[in-house]
């Protein structure tokens, strides 16, 4: 449909096309797992994540000749995925994108200060072997308004620097850090509240933390 008549863009010469295809294969091979991981963290479910990965690489393919290599390839792909994700989410009806204020995370009682994350003294790797905890974490991340989730996923899950995240989402470092802080506070609160339900008797008995004390 798009390629039936050449409009603005000249048809690529076969040599370039072959080169693009070969480079694309390398790009895809080296980065598809990383992009799928990123996409599952953003979307929460495998099918939506696959759609996002396909959209990302399709856009990368189309934009490959314009990519000058000034950014790292992976940062460039993250940026394409982030844009594709916000377009896809706009079409569907996702969680409303509200602002998180710092004030809402200021504890009003001792119990809220002392909300516990149900890790029971284990290392993060060990604790995450618990399916309920993994699910609680995923739910907490999924419940984040999307612009906060984007920053948290890029920074705390994908391990990018605040500067890199800023480049991807179009914010300065200060704004990235502010968003990240609110996102972490949100996940902490959700996770500790969900922990009440997720870690029924066995966990409570195990580590003896009073999960219930800040329950409301």
């Amino acid at each position, binding site marked *: *449909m*798009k*390629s039936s008549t050449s409009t603005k863009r000249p048809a690529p010469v076969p040599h370039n*096309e072959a080169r693009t*295809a070969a480079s*694309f*294969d390398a790009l*895809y091979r080296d980065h*598809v*797992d990383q992009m*799928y*991981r990123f996409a*599952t*963290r953003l979307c929460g479910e*495998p099918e939506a*994540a*696959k759609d996002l*990965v*396909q959209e990302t*690489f*399709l856009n990368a*393919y*189309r934009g490959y000749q314009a990519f000058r290599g000034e950014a790292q390839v992976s940062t460039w792909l993250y940026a394409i995925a982030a844009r594709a994700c916000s377009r896809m989410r706009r079409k569907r009806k996702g969680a409303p994108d509200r602002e998180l204020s*710092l004030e809402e*995370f*200021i*504890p009003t009682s*001792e119990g809220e*200060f*002392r*909300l*516990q*994350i149900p*890790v029971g003294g284990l290392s*993060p*790797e060990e*604790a*995450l072997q618990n399916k309920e*905890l*993994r699910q609680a*974490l*995923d739910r907490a*991340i999924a419940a984040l308004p999307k612009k906060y989730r984007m920053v*948290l996923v890029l920074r*705390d*899950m994908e*391990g990018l620097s605040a500067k890199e995240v800023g480049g991807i989402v179009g914010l300065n470092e200060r704004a990235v*850090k502010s968003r*990240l*802080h609110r996102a*972490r*506070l949100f*996940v*902490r609160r959700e*996770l*500790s509240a969900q922990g009440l339900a997720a870690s029924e008797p066995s966990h409570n008995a195990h580590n003896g933390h009073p999960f219930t004390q800040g329950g409301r």
Partner: protein
Amino acid sequence: MGKRITTRSAQRKPTRSPRREKERCVAVLKKLSAYIDDELPGALCDELRKHLGDCPNCEEFVLSLRQTVALCRHRPALALSQAERARMRNDILRAARPR
């Protein structure tokens, strides 16, 4: 905690005022991510660490925030199967080069 000192002389000591204490906790709470990420300037960091030593509530809070970040960092990722990877590659190329 149990003692209720309401004399005026007690109120003159700012560090003893519960209100001041709460304000300090709130100020600390706002900086906790920077603290966890080791981004606070030395003097601020020392001040915050001192507060954490004196305030069990904030100490607990920072522990739970650290744990939250650690869980995010270590959340295992799902992986694609070989077949899915190949299928998606073909779909992308087909969409990219409509003939």
